[in-house]
């Protein structure tokens, strides 16, 4: 049993036969699927699942890994180009990505997203390969209280998204949190805010609501406010690959994104979406130019995109070490195994060493293939910017309808997108923050259900959050993140007052 030999054997198995073309197809498929609103990574993978049945188990896994990696990247393409998150994980990248597009830097932003995402994906896979067995036990240290504390920490981003009007931003965040309560309550079985409609039992589809709040509202603004139809600056469509200097300027964000993605990925329940929001917030905290965030910061694109690709390795830790999927996407990898007659579980690593190492090799290869495949698709997508604006708007709206419909074959989802498009339009018109609402929407489910589950575990005692070290640390960080800006604000006012008094 030699680690390197296994890995080399994995590489040769991964590239053997149809390996490379299948990986390219997987990555391309994932990137395109991820770029379509409504088709998230897990949906893109599940649509590819039937195709993989005719392949052997290892090739099938590698192809699905490719779809997964591609979808993580693909989601950012429409987020940056059209203010439309293709996957929930890409929502955090649009805050700055769409601003960059307005400044004529769309291609650059997409290039940064691609390269940083690849870096994040590669590092996380290497960590996975090196540490899968020890990390398997770390997973078990993350219970409900820890995930709750993490979600609360993520919510501190609210303060960053609501600089214009804190009260309205807070109300927007509450609104987003409220949206996650629709449907059957897992913990008690009660129906909440379903208005007697069985379609609402499983809750609101997050992607449809997001696409409504961000993209449909933007289309409505452009249709109803002719003055907002600013000219698209030249240069959007050309240079894509970031230069070394540009990469150096986002290295902090990339490191932050990778670390956040790895940690959040290992946590059960919290996935790519939560990681990208936390990474965005952290990257701003560590950045040298935090003032640029929200106004077109490359770091604001690099951090969430790195994080949501770095989640892949973390997600696979419980999947491979314990046989328990860390996310919906990982669950589809397991389903593929079962359909190929392989029982996943803690022995997977020992019983099917060759298969697992082929998967490892495949993960490295698909992340490398992301760059050429991504660049080709990116060039194609940039052509969209040359369309006439009315044609582009009509095409986006039609794509939103069919895309949200396609995920579940459910007319409710495009209706939701339209409804929340109108809501998002109203929110923007009256100074509320759709971004804060989306943050609440993404984290609300974790906040509520993990809080209540923690209290079940502790028989109602709130001390559970402070006696467990990881959750205590996370809660302390949350408290610090809330208090630090407030203290700084008061201090700066005192200074200003003192200065004012001195002047007079």
């Amino acid at each position, binding site marked *: 049993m030699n680690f390197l030999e296994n890995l080399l054997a994995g590489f040769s198995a991964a590239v053997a036969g149809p390996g490379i073309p299948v990986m390219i197809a997987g990555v391309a498929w994932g990137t395109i699927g991820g770029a379509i609103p409504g088709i998230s990574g*897990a*949906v893109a*993978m*599940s*649509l590819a*699942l*039937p195709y993989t*049945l005719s392949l052997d188990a290892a090739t099938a896994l590698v192809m699905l890994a490719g779809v997964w990696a591609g979808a993580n990247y693909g989601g950012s393409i429409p987020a940056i180009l059209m203010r439309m998150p293709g996957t929930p994980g890409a929502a955090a990248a649009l805050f700055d990505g769409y601003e960059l597009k307005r400044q004529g830097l769309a291609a650059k932003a997409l290039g940064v997203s691609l390269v940083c995402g690849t870096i994040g994906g590669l590092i996380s896979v290497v960590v996975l390969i090196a540490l899968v067995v020890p990390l398997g036990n770390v*997973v*078990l*240290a*993350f*219970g*409900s209280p820890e995930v709750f504390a993490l979600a609360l920490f993520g919510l501190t981003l609210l303060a960053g998204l609501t600089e214009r009007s804190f009260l309205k931003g807070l109300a927007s965040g509450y609104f987003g949190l409220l949206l996650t309560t629709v449907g*059957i*309550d*897992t*913990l*008690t*079985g*009660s*129906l909440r805010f*379903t208005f007697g409609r*069985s*379609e*609402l*039992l*499983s809750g609101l589809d997050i992607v449809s609501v997001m696409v409504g709040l961000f993209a449909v509202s933007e289309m409505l603004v452009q249709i109803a406010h002719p003055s907002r139809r600013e000219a698209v600056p030249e240069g959007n469509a050309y240079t894509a690959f970031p230069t070394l200097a540009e990469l150096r300027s986002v290295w902090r964000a990339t490191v932050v994104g990778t670390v956040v993605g790895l940690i959040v990925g290992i946590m*059960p*329940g919290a996935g790519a979406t939560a990681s990208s929001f936390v990474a965005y917030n952290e990257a701003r905290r560590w950045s040298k130019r935090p003032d640029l965030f929200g106004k077109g910061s490359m770091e604001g694109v690099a951090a969430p995109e790195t994080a949501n690709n770095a989640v892949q390795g973390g997600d696979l830790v*419980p999947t491979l070490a*314990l*046989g*328990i*999927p860390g996310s*919906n996407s990982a*669950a*589809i990898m*397991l*389903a*593929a195994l*079962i*359909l190929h*007659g392989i*029982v*996943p*579980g*803690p*022995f*997977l690593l020992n019983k099917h060493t060759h298969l697992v190492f082929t998967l490892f090799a495949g993960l490295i290869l698909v992340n490398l293939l992301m760059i050429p495949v991504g660049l080709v698709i990116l060039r194609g997508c940039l052509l969209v910017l040359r369309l006439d604006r009315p044609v582009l708007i009509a095409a986006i709206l039609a794509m939103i309808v069919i895309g949200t419909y396609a995920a*579940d*074959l*459910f007319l*409710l989802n495009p209706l939701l997108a339209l409804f929340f498009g109108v809501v998002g339009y109203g929110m923007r018109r009256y100074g509320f923050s759709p971004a804060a609402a989306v943050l609440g929407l993404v984290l609300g489910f974790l906040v509520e*259900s993990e809080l209540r*589950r923690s209290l*079940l*575990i502790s*028989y109602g005692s709130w001390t559970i959050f402070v006696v467990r070290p990881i959750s205590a640390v996370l809660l302390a960080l949350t408290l610090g993140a809330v208090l630090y800006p407030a203290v700084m604000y008061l201090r700066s006012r005192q200074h200003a007052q003192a200065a004012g008094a001195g002047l007079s």
Partner: protein
Amino acid sequence: MKIGWIRVIWVCALGALLGFFSLSRPALSQPADYPTRPITFVVGFAPGGGADVFARALADALKGILPQPLVVENRPGAGGTAANAYVASRPADGYTILFAHAGSSIITPLITNQPQLKWDAFDPLARIHAEEEWLMVRPDAPWKTPEEMVTFAKANPRRLRVAGSAIGGIDSFVALSWGKAAGIEVQYIPHEGGGPATLTFLGGNAEVLIGNVSEVFQHIEARRIVPFAVASERRSSIFPHVPTLKEKGWDVVYVQWRSILLPPGVPPSRAAVLTVALQRALGTDSWKRFNANAKAIDLFLGPADFRRFLTEEEARLARIIDELGLRRR
């Protein structure tokens, strides 16, 4: 002259097209020829889930038995009942069949008070197989038998946490009925699915795990999880040494069965074709292998028996749903 030729060509082309369509249209009136085109197997859950994997394995087993393939179509949503609503609107020609389990065909329609989506709005075709419900503990648990556990729980209140899937699922019914039957306080901790429940349990945040063994079988082999009771009618062939709750005197019997329903009014001759094919599919190697891996047991029932079973099952489930106060007012 020229215009005339073009017209003739157009008429011929149109005629050929119409003829092609009328020929390719399926002949509905001849059940002997059923099936002449692929049958759509509608599953109300997303690809990759237990229901979907089951459906694809069954479709695979039916290959070569039916002259036409079974095509799985996923219509997830509304706890599986979105698919019920869709299938109810499809023609009853035997080309659309519906996946059903207790959750999608009894529990959710009862809780939400939608009789038009319940199993009796359809024609039962066949119950196929079931996964059993197991109670599992960690090997270092201070008890070795269900009785010891009950004694412990009575002596130490607030020390028995049970992790399982969401309230309203079979897991929660087993846990809560057992707690009631044994007269102990069970702290049931619901999760979004079996995987998260297992993580809570393995992380030491619950004493008992409840659910299927398919997801945790390797943990059982590794002696990290020990099954110690099963909620079946009789002992399971998977772990024959594990007692049933029933033999210990608690009448708690639930399995997670999976089945197929038809839109109401499918001709009996066509239902018969499907029933015979399904019965044969269960004998194939590919199905047996799948069933063994899924740690499931075959529980085939034909249309008439299945209908009787569903009637009883609904009465039983309705009783516990009302006891728990889950039904919508």
